[in-house]
């Protein structure tokens, strides 16, 4: 997608982006965001319903898990999984199972190295 108006990448018009702070601190966070927005834009997930679940996940964390370090994107992930389940797109047991398989890979394989453009995504066994 291209912008209707080209703005300078650097020079006088650029500083607001440069002095901003990254919205994502780890690749999985931007990946999660991208997956969510892709489904929203495709009309497969309702944004308002998702937002309602995000509010709920944040509120639940704030009421309970004080010993855990705050991570916004983990709350987002909970809300996303709830939304996928509610929409009948992906069920939590499927996610649990594949996560377990991926986590069982040899040491070093579950560290995302920046981008995964050329990353072969494993799928569930025997299907």
């Amino acid at each position, binding site marked *: *997608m291209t*912008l*209707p*108006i080209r*703005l300078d990448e650097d020079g*006088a*018009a650029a*500083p*607001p*982006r440069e*002095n*901003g*702070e990254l*919205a*994502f601190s780890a*690749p*999985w966070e*931007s*990946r*999660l*965001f*991208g*997956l969510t*927005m*892709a*489904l*929203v*834009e*495709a009309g*497969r997930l309702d*944004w308002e319903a998702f*937002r309602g679940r*995000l509010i709920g996940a*944040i509120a639940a964390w*704030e009421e309970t898990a004080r010993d855990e370090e*705050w991570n916004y*994107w*983990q709350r987002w*992930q909970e809300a*996303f999984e709830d939304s*996928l389940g509610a929409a009948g*797109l*992906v069920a939590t047991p*499927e*996610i649990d199972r*594949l*996560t*377990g398989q*991926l*986590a069982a890979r040899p040491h070093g394989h*579950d*560290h*995302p190295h920046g*981008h*995964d*453009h050329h990353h072969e*995504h*494993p*799928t*569930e066994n025997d299907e």
Partner: protein
Amino acid sequence: MTADHQHGNDSPATRTEALEALLVKKGLVQSAAVDALVERYEQDIGPLRGARVVAEAWTDPAFRARLLEDGMPAIRELGFGDNTDAHVARLVVKENTDSVHNLVVCTLCSCYPWAVLGLPPAWYKSPAYRARAVREPRRLLAELGLDLSPDVEVRVWDSSAEVRYMVLPQRPRGTDGLGVEELTGLVTRDSMIGVEQL
């Protein structure tokens, strides 16, 4: 247990990888489309848009009036406000003056004017900012380096599903001779959230 530290068996990164694999396998998303979408939000859409809007408002009183009247149509005049925020009904722009300082927050989650500011910074989403912006905005601003005179009224705007807010900061002194491009370069993201003055 062995001495081996736990290797993130259920780490959010691994879980996200599983989510993507499942969604791709089911034909619900394509990884390349997700790449493009993330790139669009990270690179094409950012506070630079908001900065441009502010610079236009500083230099064009008629545009400023339209912007304050109804934000979304005004930013569309500049070619912004594509489908990024299509689910947001309204963009409301609040103007700082000598006597009023505006601050934007989303107390419930992280609603933010994506169309003009891109994605919110981490601190905007933190429980501390979300709570304190409403409870003790003046003290919060002071801690962030913005000491407001007691004469200045602080107005806090809590974003919602229907309405997103953006602050129109005051034009810095000594910038009379500058054009839109140069002025755009002076506008920071934080000033459009209201935690900074220019």
